[in-house]
């Protein structure tokens, strides 16, 4: 994304335009303005929809808590059927444990433990999308508990650990510094028309 730098300027311009648009104006310009049909709603009325967690700083992690021990109970009852014993992989999805440290080698094993930069990623995803056959059916306490259990299985939380907004924000995940932002265009190719190096293909390798 090469556009990040001009962001501030553009937003400012858009705001200026917004402020200049007269509400309910009957001037010629006002007549061609779009209708204003949005119904005001309060954040409180939106609470059940407002389920996102901003994962780097944990903004949006709800009150509540859940222990690794309780998480195992939730897991065995509601997740094991698809994800297998101790998250080692089940009939519809592969392992959710292991892989930490695999990114320096050529076999990058992707699990919540190896891949997620913040524990909040796990809570957010479990709360919004799991169990896959009944998403958004867990209580916040259950989401904390089962997330804590998965972190524990990845060696990232002690057996007596408790997941809550504080512990999930404080936890330093192995892949925290693993991400960089888009650097493209990162490849520069030439438009060669003759005497060009052949492109790699199966024929070239025969």
């Amino acid at each position, binding site marked *: 994304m090469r556009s990040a730098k001009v962001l501030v300027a553009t*937003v400012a311009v858009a705001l200026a335009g917004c402020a200049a648009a007269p509400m309910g104006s009957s001037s010629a310009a006002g007549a061609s303005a779009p209708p204003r*049909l949005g119904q005001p709603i309060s954040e409180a009325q939106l609470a059940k929809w*407002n389920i996102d967690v*901003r994962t780097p700083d944990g903004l949006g992690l709800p009150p509540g808590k859940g222990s690794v021990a309780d998480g195992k109970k939730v897991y065995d009852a509601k997740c094991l059927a698809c994800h297998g014993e101790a998250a080692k992989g089940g009939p519809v999805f592969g392992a959710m444990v292991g892989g930490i440290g695999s990114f320096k080698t050529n076999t990058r094993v992707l699990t919540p433990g190896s891949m997620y930069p913040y524990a909040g990623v796990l809570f957010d995803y479990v709360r919004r999308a799991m169990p896959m056959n009944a998403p958004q059916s867990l209580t916040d306490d259950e989401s904390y508990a089962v997330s804590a259990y998965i972190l524990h299985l990845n060696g990232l939380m002690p057996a007596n650990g408790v997941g809550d907004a504080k512990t999930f924000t404080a936890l330093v995940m192995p892949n925290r510094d693993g991400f960089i932002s888009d650097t493209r265009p*990162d490849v520069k190719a030439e*438009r060669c028309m003759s*005497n060009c190096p052949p*492109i790699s293909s199966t*024929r070239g390798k025969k």
Partner: protein
Amino acid sequence: MKLSEKMKELVESSRRELQGRESKSHDPGRRRMLGRTLAMAGAAGVATQAGAQALEVPPSAKEHGRPMPANEYGMPSKFEAHVKRRRTDVFVNRQNFSDWSMTPLHQQHGIVTPNGLIFERHHNGVPDIDPDKHSFVIHGMVRQPLKFSMADLMKYPSVTKFYFHECSGNGLTDWLAPKSKTVQQTHGLLSCAQWTGVPVATLLEEAGVLKEAQWALAEGADGASHARSIPMKKLLDDALLVYASNGEMLRPENGYPLRLFTPGWEGNTSVKWLRRLKLGDKPWHLRSETARYTDPMPDGKWRQFSMEMECKSVVTSPSGGMKIKPGTIEILGFAWSGNGSIRAVDVTLDGGRTWREARLEEPVLDKTLTRFRLTVKWDGAPMTIASRAMDSTGYVQPTVDDIKKVRAIVGFVQHHNAIFPWDVAASGEVSNAIG
């Protein structure tokens, strides 16, 4: 076997398959071969015995056709029932809720993908949403959070635009060795449609964007509540709240009744079944933008927020699974760029040593599939064909080798826009030659 018998057999077997409304074969070359055989028979005309039969009046001219029903939604001919979206046959998921199916690009005529063939990617099945019950909300860093009904959204001035749409995972099975057989399987997470909707900017202005707002979370009402962080700049620039494609309301699998559309950007940022935009000052770094849809880079790193789908092209005919005959052939394909319009497409027949410029077919539009064509004579010697596109920024489509120098190609890697070779054997059989 005489040509006429062979033709008859082909027609019969294909009819049997089509009437079953299911293609048992996975072979895209089949119908095309049939077409070619028929054309050849016609062209051969007087020259061959088999082609010299007198034409009979066809049964269709000697009986009633189907009467007109009082009302109906027209469907493709039953003889086209083999033209279908298909799931990948390489990366076979063990469930089909979080899965994808691909557009038969080799069977697409023109630049518009019919609605029933627009590729799909969803993360927990396709919801059936009643538009009368659907609400869309803008909240977070706005002066006034607002809720919109579908009926109200459709009262806003709309725009209608042609845009391609491509999944960042398009081609992920075929970087270093041929895994997929057909162009549907190598490139079919790509479609192009005429999208209708309301500029997101219109509604953001109504809600009043606070000056701290730099990003927005777009979230769907599906069973995965799929969500992505989108920079405000994109939302204010050209993003649309789309409710229609190709002249009718969206199909459920493409986001009915409402989706975000981010032109030129990786497909999953165009969040389907959109229920809210929440404005904030920083991105959210959710699973869908950290653990997924990111690119492995050297030193164990991952690159995220790679939004634009860079310039790319592919030959759709001849392509994997087809069979051609010596003589005049038309090389046909698509080129596109998430950063602008297509300036030129070159085609090689000799594995990249020499290239010649193909003809671009109008219209050539911004961030839209562009057709290219090149007529060549094939003498029957084996060849390796590929296309290479250049866009309006001057960016030239790279090879896998070019990309390998700067990114780590390990596992299933996103953002594959490399030149894609097809091998044509002396037999005329065409196969995937990536490698």
